[in-house]
């Protein structure tokens, strides 16, 4: 919540000599943050952020109280001026107050008075200027006064048309609305109740006010109004919030009351209101003052030891100094031995536990005055075992180094993308309140989002992108299974993409990687480790190759270092053999078969492919003896025979 406060208005409550810039600095360090100072018609106006727990500071007087408490800490003399609201004198004529049916469970206080002979005059310039400076619309004085008083003291009040109330029986019943009742607010918008809203009704059951939120058209003042009922009530904060949120009627009054504005403030609000109506509109008090105050804020004392202060601050603050600071905030403070007994004022319900009092003392002492130091306590060593952030960084760096681009895409998908992911729509988790149609379902696959990125960058083809992110698989009566996934989509050729994947797995020292597929299938599965764990898959579609791989599988099977193999002491014989193979020969199984022919064939790699000719680079090796040409010749013959007999291929060239 932000509040605008003109400097001159603040000084009506504050005795202090202070430059606006300095006030901004000091208040921001120890109290509500002054975000800006605007110049409005030559006057500095503070734009102050007030936190939600401090409804008491949402007024000119509340801020003045803060300033008066803070400035002395910086050596600037400051004093909160006494609030001089005159008592409301007995009426000259006696008009009947409405018959009010109270409901103490719903409302803490009702305070009202009837004013007659209210002249409809324009808002005086001094008041209009202030309301303009705080960005409020200026109506005529009868309306402006209620806004002015609310801003000055931080508790709302409302002016009813007294004659409208009389016409409907001069009765106010404070109750909860049922469902389906209609009302029209004073700005002409109509609503239907859902049930449970706190409303004022007349004797006939008509809603005549949305108390602590907004007036209704049927009881509010209009151009003909001459007599008003000035009323301040204090509906339960939860009820105000419920009604205000349900119907999206977010007024200043609602914001104050749902944050627990102090009902005790209503007395000064009514007095100041009457004073202004008398002075500006020539109004006369026409009834006794009605005050039903069933539940004043009675705040419990909070005790705080000097040890507790030390425990949070790390420096000792004398209890006497703490007492002085708290008293400037209007707390009643006693020191008993080593303990502060603090009774907060009724407008500070946020002070309820020792830590709250610590905060008040600490902020006035000044956080900037506390030393800054790192922890000297033992470093925890109990790390979660299922994550490995270093590995994730290695993956990112490796893929970027080989030319691939990391992207971040949204975890939420449109209906079309969810369907495209290969999981049926109803097996996705869906948002109950999406903001936009393209982000409704929690994704189960990264592939659609990454495919969209590749398609959206036509000038960068071929393009390979990757992302490490969660996918979300629903589980019955539980949170979804969040599976951290490395997703890759590339418009490069399959061999190139797979080559990078294999290099990555090798860099992570993952042993026993198997990539398996059925002949001609567009999908291959990736297995890792001794247990042949399914880690992910590779899919080839028309335009792209897509890979998904569970990061957890990488974490499980990755090693920080390889298993060292001593260097070969005997010669490795390397040679290339080229075979012509029938079309649609699956090369993977062929290579596996050739590799397994003999233990002396230690490596067999595909080096080039030209039309139907496939050149393999073969390493022959024996760890103990150097292989001779006579030993290799039969191996070579077996390779050629295997290719011919099992795969229908033929060697290019002749065996010697």
């Amino acid at each position: 919540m932000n509040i605008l406060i003109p400097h001159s208005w603040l000084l009506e409550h504050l005795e202090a000599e202070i430059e606006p810039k300095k006030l901004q600095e000091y208040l921001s360090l120890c109290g509500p943050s002054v975000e800006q100072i605007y110049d409005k018609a030559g006057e500095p106006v503070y734009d102050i952020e007030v936190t939600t727990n401090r409804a008491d500071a949402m007024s000119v007087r509340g801020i003045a109280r803060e300033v008066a408490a803070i400035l002395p800490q910086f050596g600037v003399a400051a004093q909160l001026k006494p609030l001089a609201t005159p008592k409301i004198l007995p009426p000259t004529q006696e008009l009947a107050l409405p018959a009010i049916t109270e409901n103490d469970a719903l409302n803490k206080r009702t305070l009202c008075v009837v004013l007659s002979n209210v002249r409809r005059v324009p808002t005086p310039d001094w008041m209009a200027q202030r309301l303009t400076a705080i960005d409020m619309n200026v109506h005529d004085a009868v309306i402006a006064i209620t806004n002015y008083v609310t801003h000055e003291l931080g508790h709302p009040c409302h002016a009813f048309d007294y004659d409208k109330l009389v016409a409907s029986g001069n009765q106010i019943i404070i109750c909860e609305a049922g469902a389906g009742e209609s009302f029209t607010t004073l700005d002409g918008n109509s609503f239907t109740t859902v049930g449970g809203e706190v409303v004022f009704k007349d004797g006939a059951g008509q809603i005549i006010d949305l108390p602590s939120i907004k007036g209704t058209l049927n009881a509010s003042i209009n151009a003909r109004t001459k007599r008003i009922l000035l009323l301040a009530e204090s509906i339960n904060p939860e009820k105000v919030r419920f009604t205000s949120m349900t119907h999206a009627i977010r007024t200043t009054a609602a914001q104050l009351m749902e944050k627990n504005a102090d009902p005790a403030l209503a007395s000064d609000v009514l007095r100041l209101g009457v004073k202004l109506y008398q002075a500006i509109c020539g109004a006369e008090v026409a009834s006794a003052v009605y005050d039903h105050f069933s539940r004043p804020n009675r705040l419990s004392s909070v005790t705080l030891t000097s040890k507790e202060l030390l425990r949070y601050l790390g420096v000792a603050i004398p209890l006497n100094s703490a007492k002085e600071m708290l008293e400037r905030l209007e707390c009643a403070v006693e020191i008993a031995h080593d303990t502060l007994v603090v009774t907060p004022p009724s407008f500070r319900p946020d002070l309820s536990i020792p830590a709250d009092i610590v905060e008040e003392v600490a902020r006035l002492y000044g956080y900037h005055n506390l030393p800054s130091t790192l922890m000297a306590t033992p470093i925890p060593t109990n790390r979660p075992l299922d994550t490995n952030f270093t590995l994730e960084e290695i993956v990112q760096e490796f893929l970027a180094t080989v030319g691939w681009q990391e992207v971040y895409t949204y975890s939420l998908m449109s209906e079309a993308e969810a369907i495209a992911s290969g999981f049926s729509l109803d097996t996705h988790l869906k948002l109950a309140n999406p903001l936009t149609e393209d982000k409704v379902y929690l994704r189960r696959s990264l592939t659609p989002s990454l495919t969209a990125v590749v398609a959206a960058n036509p000038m960068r083809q071929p393009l390979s992108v990757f992302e490490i992110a969660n996918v979300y698989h629903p589980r019955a009566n539980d949170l979804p299974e969040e599976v951290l996934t490395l997703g890759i989509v590339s418009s490069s050729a399959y061999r190139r993409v797979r080559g990078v994947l294999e290099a990555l797995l090798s860099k992570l020292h993952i042993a026993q990687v198997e990539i398996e597929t059925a002949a001609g299938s567009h999908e291959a599965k990736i297995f890792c480790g001794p247990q042949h764990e399914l880690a992910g898959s590779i899919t080839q579609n028309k335009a792209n190759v897509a890979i998904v791989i569970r990061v957890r599988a990488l974490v499980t099977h990755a090693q920080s270092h390889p298993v060292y193999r001593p260097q070969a002491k005997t010669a490795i014989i390397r040679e290339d053999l080229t075979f012509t193979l029938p079309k649609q020969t699956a090369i993977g199984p062929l290579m596996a078969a050739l590799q397994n022919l003999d233990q002396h064939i230690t490596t067999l790699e595909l080096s080039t492919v030209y039309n139907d000719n496939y050149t393999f680079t073969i390493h022959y090796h024996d760890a103990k003896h150097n292989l001779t040409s006579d030993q290799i010749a039969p191996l070579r013959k077996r390779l050629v025979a295997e290719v011919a007999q099992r795969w229908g291929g033929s060697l290019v060239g002749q065996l010697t």
Partner: protein
Amino acid sequence: MIGSQYSEKLLALKQRLQLETTLSAEELQQKYLGAHGVFTLLAKQITELTADERKLAGKPLNDLKMALATAILAAHKTTSGQGWVDLSLPGEPPQVGHVHPISQAMAEITQIFTSIGFTRVRYPEVDWDWYVFESLNMPPNHPARDEWETFFVDQAPDEKKGQMVLTTHTSNGQVREMERLGEPPIRMINIARCYRRQQDVTHTQMFHQFEGLVVDKGITIQHLKGTLDYFAKAFYGPGTKSRIRPFHFQFTEPSFEVDFSCHICGGSGISLTSIPQGIGTAQKCKFCKSGWHEVGGCGMVHPNVLQAGGIDPEIYTGFAFGWGIERTYTLKAGLAIDDIRLLYSGDLQFLEQF
């Protein structure tokens, strides 16, 4: 031939070799060492000498051979160094990819905090209301929840833990980390995706936060300040300062807002623009508020939160902080990204810059 004649021939040849400055290595090779080369022929003539003369001629013959080899080598080097090359040619770049800027920021943040003993963790992005709000001292319908524009998942609520929501902040990791460890010491850094129901040039429906949580005996506001200072200097540069100001969060008490000093204006709030005469003109710094950048919130862990995590607030205290990565990262010099949505656009023109 007699020995003295042979020696003279050797000497003459040596002198002749010294005058050969224009021949290339190949030409020298051909002229002296070819099948009919002058040295080859002379070397063959040694057989015409007597045995004693041969002994005497052996050494000068060998010296001449060495001189020849040296000359050929030298000629070889000179020739290859003299050809025309164009070193003004542009380089042929390898294809280079890029780690996403958010990942780069995460890695840097992780490194900074792990170096002062924090453990990085990861917790659910879809979580129960209990962990996201209620255990953090925010009961249902509390006005403080307004600031977290929450996405709800269309699923039945859990009887005890409430509705299923997308995490609006990384603070759901606080009670989860307390549950994981059982007891202090805790020094956690939790970095994760978060979600809020908002979208404009400075907000995306998905964003990232990092959350720090420290709980132990004797943890004070001073340790929070020390940690913030350490991070500010490590992330933005050695001269950076941090400060905390009063604020309010339900899950910390006291609560603070954190500011880092502006590195553009050096924390003065005034940027000096020099003009040719050497006189500077002072202008309000466009990048900060009076010399400071607001980065996010922090505070001392509320006793109710410690209790929700099974930790006795009478024995332990702690602090926590949680900030947006996007905001923290783009405050770095030169990274004033005008539309935060670019980060998640997958636009290569943008991403290739990082």
